[in-house]
């Protein structure tokens, strides 16, 4: 008998992609289109289910997972990495039985508990105590198991004083602590965790990581998805890297994480065409180009510390209804461990951008960029009428090299993450 706990054979999962139909430009066309709409709706909703039938021929789809073969042994602590949309979470959802594969099989020996979200099933109107029992039973604990650990759970959460108050009165931090405390006291043979540690304050996060370390050491098998590569390296003894639904690397944490970082952090061109990028969101509004420049309007993707960073985004849209709407753009900048270091937003900064022409530019300038040396990636998001209009993660990247931030003629060569002006007496 083979000594594996989880084994997958050719696990694949496909999802349909929605394509926008061209809108008719004649009155008759519009009427026919309107009458035909329910039939089209029905077809579209039906493809959601028929896509899961592997024999069904589908026009527009993606393989979220493509023939994944894995063997996971008892006691292994596995970290799963990959960029957003690479299929990591889909794999976890299949192994947690939340969704079925489109094809392929998996065999799991042992009781699985999965944490895809903290506090699943929490009900606002119920007290902390009631939610502990509800959430615990949802995670697969029996009432007697919860009874046994109840005091420990409450003590770990640090919300003992409010345990009989409805959780709608809790701060979001308290809610997360309570929810994580329940989860931390699960004792399954296999624990599946998806990026849930990204919530909560830093202190509590540390406490959780410590608790997870205990769990791992007590001889259970852990599967752990995270963008926090540091905690992956410290907690796991094996890392699997997934990209485009396929396994790109599988081995020792440091080696795989470094391979992964090399592909993520290649600095990109300073002018990037965005029209050909595959999007699953509504394409009526699109970013079409991104340009990075320095203070001399020279295109570049390599900046000295203290240079101005100018990000010029070109957009286009074909929906007349969007005219005169406000365009809100969020730019988030992540460092090489995928930690968000800057989050910029035109409206928060007091600049309202109206959509006047079907094509235009919005420009964001960061004077004296305060980031330390390293490689950074950019995520952009457009929001129109409070809805996400276009989202592109990892749209481009740049590097920061030593420079004269303080204008004193001396290049400051530190490993610090940030620079700022300081006043001395």
């Amino acid at each position: 008998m083979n000594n594996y706990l989880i084994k997958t054979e050719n696990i694949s999962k496909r999802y349909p992609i929605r394509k926008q139909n061209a809108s008719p430009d004649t009155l008759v066309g519009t009427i026919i289109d309107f009458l035909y709409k329910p039939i089209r709706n029905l077809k579209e909703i039906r493809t959601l289910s028929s896509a899961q039938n592997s024999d069904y021929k589908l026009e527009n789809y993606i393989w979220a997972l493509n023939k994944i073969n894995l063997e996971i042994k008892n006691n292994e602590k596995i970290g799963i990495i990959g960029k957003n949309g690479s299929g990591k979470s889909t794999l976890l959802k299949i192994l947690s039985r939340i969704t079925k594969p489109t094809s392929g099989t998996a065999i799991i020996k042992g009781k699985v508990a999965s944490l895809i979200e903290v506090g699943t099933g929490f009900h606002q109107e119920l007290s902390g105590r009631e939610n502990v029992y509800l959430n615990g039973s949802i995670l697969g604990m029996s009432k007697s198991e919860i009874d046994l650990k109840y005091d420990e759970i409450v003590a770990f959460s640090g919300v003992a004083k409010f345990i009989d108050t409805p959780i709608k009165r809790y701060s979001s931090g308290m809610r997360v602590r309570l929810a994580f405390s329940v989860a931390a006291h699960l004792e399954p043979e296999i624990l599946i965790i998806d990026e849930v540690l990204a919530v909560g304050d830093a202190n509590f996060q540390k406490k959780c990581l410590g608790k997870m370390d205990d769990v791992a050491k007590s001889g259970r098998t852990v599967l752990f998805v995270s963008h926090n590569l540091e905690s992956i390296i410290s907690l796991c003894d094996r890392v699997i890297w997934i990209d485009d639904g396929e396994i790109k690397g599988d081995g020792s944490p440091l080696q795989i994480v470094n391979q992964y970082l090399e592909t993520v952090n290649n600095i990109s061109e300073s002018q990037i065409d965005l029209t050909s990028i595959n999007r699953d969101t509504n394409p009526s509004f699109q970013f079409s180009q991104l340009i990075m420049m320095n203070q001399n309007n020279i295109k570049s993707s390599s900046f000295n510390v203290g240079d101005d960073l100018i990000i010029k985004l070109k957009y286009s849209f074909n929906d007349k209804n969007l005219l005169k709407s406000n365009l809100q753009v969020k730019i988030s900048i992540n460092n090489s461990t995928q930690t968000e270091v800057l989050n910029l937003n035109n409206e928060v900064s007091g600049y309202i951008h109206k959509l006047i022409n079907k094509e235009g530019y919005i420009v964001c300038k960061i004077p004296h960029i305060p980031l330390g040396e390293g490689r950074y990636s950019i995520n952009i998001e457009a929001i129109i009428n409070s809805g996400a209009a276009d989202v592109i993660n990892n749209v481009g990247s740049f590097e920061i090299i030593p420079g004269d931030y303080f204008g004193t003629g001396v290049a400051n060569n530190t490993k610090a993450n940030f620079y700022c002006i300081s006043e001395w007496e």
Partner: protein
Amino acid sequence: MNNISSKDNITIITPHSKKFLNFKEILEYKDLLYFLILKDIKARYAQSIIGVGWAIIQPLFFMLVFTVIFGKLAKIDSEGIPYQIFSFTALVPWTFFSNSMADSANSLSGNLSLITNIYIPRIMIPLSAIIGKFIDFIISFMILIILLISYSYYPDQKIVTIFFYILLMFIASLGFGLILGTMAIQYRDIKYALPFGVQLFMYATPVAYSVNMIPEKYQLIYALNPMVTVIEGFRNIFLDTGNINIEMTSVSFITSSICLIIATIYFSKTERIFADVV
């Protein structure tokens, strides 16, 4: 710590779905069912002044309105029984049926995080919604008994058959609720059709009138609606109307059982894609 009980805990994940419910698994999760029901009951009347009193207000007010409109104005025949208890005897099971069916139909699409973020036997969700409503039923049932006694209607030994009608009422609401709830996950149209569908259904059920008003040759077809038998059964037990017979009862029981079996198969076959089609 390595004594893993893998032998008896093997899960095989395939693209295919189960043919029928996994009863062993449902038993394993029985504590979850208990807490879901508890949540349902506690959350429903949280921060309300009348609280569980709302369970009786709905049938009581329907009774008042029906008595004025159908009893006094339209003078619908209530077989010599005071119209208020004639209608309330029907409203108690009907309120349970309509509310629990609507609740369980909305329960799956209303609890998406339980479907997309965790694995539990999903049948627990509509099941707990229905059982949660049963508490309301028991309360209004007690009011019914008090009302009947105050009008000097004392139930005789026929009362033991009440359990059969309650079971039938349960089967019917679970069957309908499960089919509609499964469809509602993929097609939100169900959500919009449900409120007026329930209203229309009430007119196809002898809540405000007597089953006697239906011509006899159509009564078997009429009994395809299981709530016809439930309501006439209640009336026969408490008001001694004598409008119920074995043929109608069998038709109702068979149709609602078939409906529940189809619902269970449909649910089990669709469950595997719930997280994909929401």
